[in-house]
């Protein structure tokens, strides 16, 4: 492609940070990147920011990948499942690459964007939407962009109020009465505020571009948005504002929160936003089958499943087979898991392609002050791991 072919003006384009491992998800992300982790039966986590972009009218999305990207790459494909297979714009997968004078991995979130300055410049955007790709939420970014323009900010950060006791788990914005950000604290031990950053940022591209270059030239920087770029912009007096969001938003970065967010779907499948259908790449399997011996209650289930046993209060992804006599309770079962005869699965997350052997027990009853759910990694066979 000649450079002139790429020059198309877009007011706002999105950059998705999809390169992280998500190590708090433990072995679940040994083989796949966190944004590719299964969620809610039919989805992968990256479906949420991708759908939000498309539904917000943002049709140009760069997805920066680095850690275990194979599944993520094939899942996104040409973007056809999100109507992002476009002649102008659409989805572009952006892994780290070598160029004259440098061969570098993405060293941080800011560095990942900086290494793709040429990609962004080609679209000559006025605004850049930077998104973490590891949250479950439905959000109209165009409203946030309107807000950003209205107040004439350099940077707008979406925030959600979290309970004060949880605030130390998040990036917290300390603001003045006009929601202007005066301080950004990453996971403060003693939080002064409960406005948590949602990992959704809008920047004026010409401003951010300057700070990215500065940051790149600073050998002491960790090249991180939260740790470096935002503090530098604040120090220089840039106009940085919080944008309050009051819908459903969940960080699914831990086993417990991933389990909980799946269970939240049993209470409200729409996550509070009915007319915002999440787009995804489904496998196109036949509808699921419930056998005469099967029993299924209070559960989300999808195509290709076959239920001969008992399933209660769980979320099942495509192609799961629960054999006769097996019992599944309070669990998240990812794609193509097979739970053999008379096995029991309780309060567990089973990664894709897991097999639970006949009569085996996985997990234990959930206790109010007990630990997180039992986790079986992708492709594991629970032959020897008893409950």
């Amino acid at each position, binding site marked *: 492609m000649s450079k002139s072919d790429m020059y198309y003006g877009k007011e706002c384009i999105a950059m998705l940070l999809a390169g992280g491992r998500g190590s708090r998800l433990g072995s679940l992300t040994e083989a796949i990147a966190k944004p590719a982790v299964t969620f*809610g*039966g*039919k989805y992968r986590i990256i479906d949420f920011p991708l759908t939000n972009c498309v539904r917000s009218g943002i049709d140009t999305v760069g997805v920066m990948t680095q850690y275990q990207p194979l599944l993520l790459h094939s899942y996104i494909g040409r973007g*056809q*499942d999100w109507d992002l297979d476009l002649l102008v714009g659409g989805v572009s997968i952006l892994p780290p690459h070598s160029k004259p004078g440098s061969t570098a991995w993405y060293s941080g979130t800011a560095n990942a964007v900086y290494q793709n300055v040429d990609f962004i410049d080609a679209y000559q955007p006025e605004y850049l939407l930077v998104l973490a790709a590891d949250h479950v939420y439905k959000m109209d970014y165009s409203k946030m962009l309107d807000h950003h323009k209205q107040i004439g900010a350099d940077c707008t950060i979406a925030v959600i109020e979290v309970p004060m006791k949880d605030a130390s788990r998040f990036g917290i914005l300390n603001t003045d009465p006009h929601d202007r950000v005066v301080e950004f604290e990453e996971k403060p031990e003693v939080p002064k505020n409960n406005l948590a950053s949602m990992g959704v940022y809008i920047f004026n591209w010409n401003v951010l571009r300057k700070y990215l270059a500065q940051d790149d030239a600073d050998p002491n920087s960790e090249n991180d948005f939260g740790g470096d770029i935002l503090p530098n912009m604040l120090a220089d007096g840039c106009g940085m504002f919080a944008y309050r969001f009051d819908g459903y938003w969940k960080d699914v970065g831990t086993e417990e929160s991933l389990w909980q967010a799946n269970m939240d779907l*049993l209470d409200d*499948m*729409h996550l509070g936003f009915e007319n915002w*259908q*999440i*787009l*995804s790449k*489904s496998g*196109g*399997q*036949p*509808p*699921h*089958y*419930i*056998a*005469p011996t*099967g*029993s*299924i*209650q*209070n*559960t*989300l*289930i*999808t*195509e290709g499943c*076959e239920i001969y046993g008992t399933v209660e209060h769980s*979320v099942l992804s495509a192609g799961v087979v629960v054999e006769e006599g097996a019992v599944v309770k309070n669990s998240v079962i990812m794609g193509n898991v097979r739970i053999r005869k008379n096995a029991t699965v309780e309060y567990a997350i089973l990664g894709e392609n897991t097999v639970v052997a006949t009569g085996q027990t996985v997990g234990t009853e959930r206790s109010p002050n007990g630990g997180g759910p039992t986790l079986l990694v992708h492709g594991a066979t629970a032959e020897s791991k008893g409950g």
Partner: protein
Amino acid sequence: MYIGLSLSDPHPDFVSDGSTKRTLSAAQFAGRYRLVDFMLSNMVNSGINHIGMVLNSHYQSLIAHIGMGKEWDLARKSGGLTFFPPYLSDARQSVNNEIDGPLHRAVQAVAKISGEYVVLVDSSVVCNLDYRPAMDAHRLSGADVMAIYVKKQVQPDSRGYAVAYDIDEDGRITGISGASGAKDEVQNVSLGAYIMDKRVFLQLMGREKNCGMLRFSKEILAPQLWRLRVRGYEFRGYTAQISSVETFFRHNMEMLDTEKRNELFHYGGRRIFTSRRDSLPTKYGKRAHIENSIIADGCQIEGTVINSVICRNVRIRPGAVVENCVLKDRTVVERHAKLNWMIVDRGGYISESRNMLGSDTYPVYIEPERII
């Protein structure tokens, strides 16, 4: 290079009754499929990606379903899918001077494009068929036409739509006739699929004005058996040929049989493609009770479902009982309503505490968007 061409037959019983304003090949099957999905998937899975579809009437929902053929990888620069719909002027032409009906245009198009062989198929036969071994057999046999058939018993309700072959010891077809539908008689039943050299296709169809698969088999091919070498190729998997409300119901219900379902959907690793809508997963309520049913995505089931086929986005409220039914997309069954032996077409609404009862030999059909 093979060219695929599909024909459809008029099915007066079904169009007036089971599939109002919808061509047969757009009828639903197994909860999320349309009959045409099987023909298109079989073609694509066999490496045939230059496909023409001759359309006759009521094809709006068929075209809406197929679109550009993206789901079958048929939206492509070379090859892909071409529709041949009738023109308004076709209908005005008298029988005698009808010159350019949709079939005629399709034959002209086949003549022009490169490809040595034509696979002529019925667009509404349900099966998971790999044409490749049949295509190889055709080339090696040196026959003019290879006709694919299945050995089975024809049910009385399919009589008039099923075609049977007489096949001699050498595998040559010596007779083509309407299947008898007699009890306990296994016949060589046509699957409405013919592989032939393009030259033979053009000879046979070159002057045809309008032609469904029944007419092709019985009136065009049959009289030529004395001079053409027409051979049979036996297919051994699951097949369903739908021609009436009863057969529609019976074959949908057959999908509750796991063996038949596996034969159709998991045969040789070949997938059946269909349009995907990204419906939500299906949600079962706390008092849902389900036995022996297949249920598509997007449903909310709070009541009882037994021996039924439930299509997408159906709502079954608490206390409702659905037994031996096919419920199509968006059906709502309100609290304490009871349905038995029914087909409810898309968007049907069954009010609270209604009782509706058909019978196993006569399922009652409720037309689309009907409020009961």
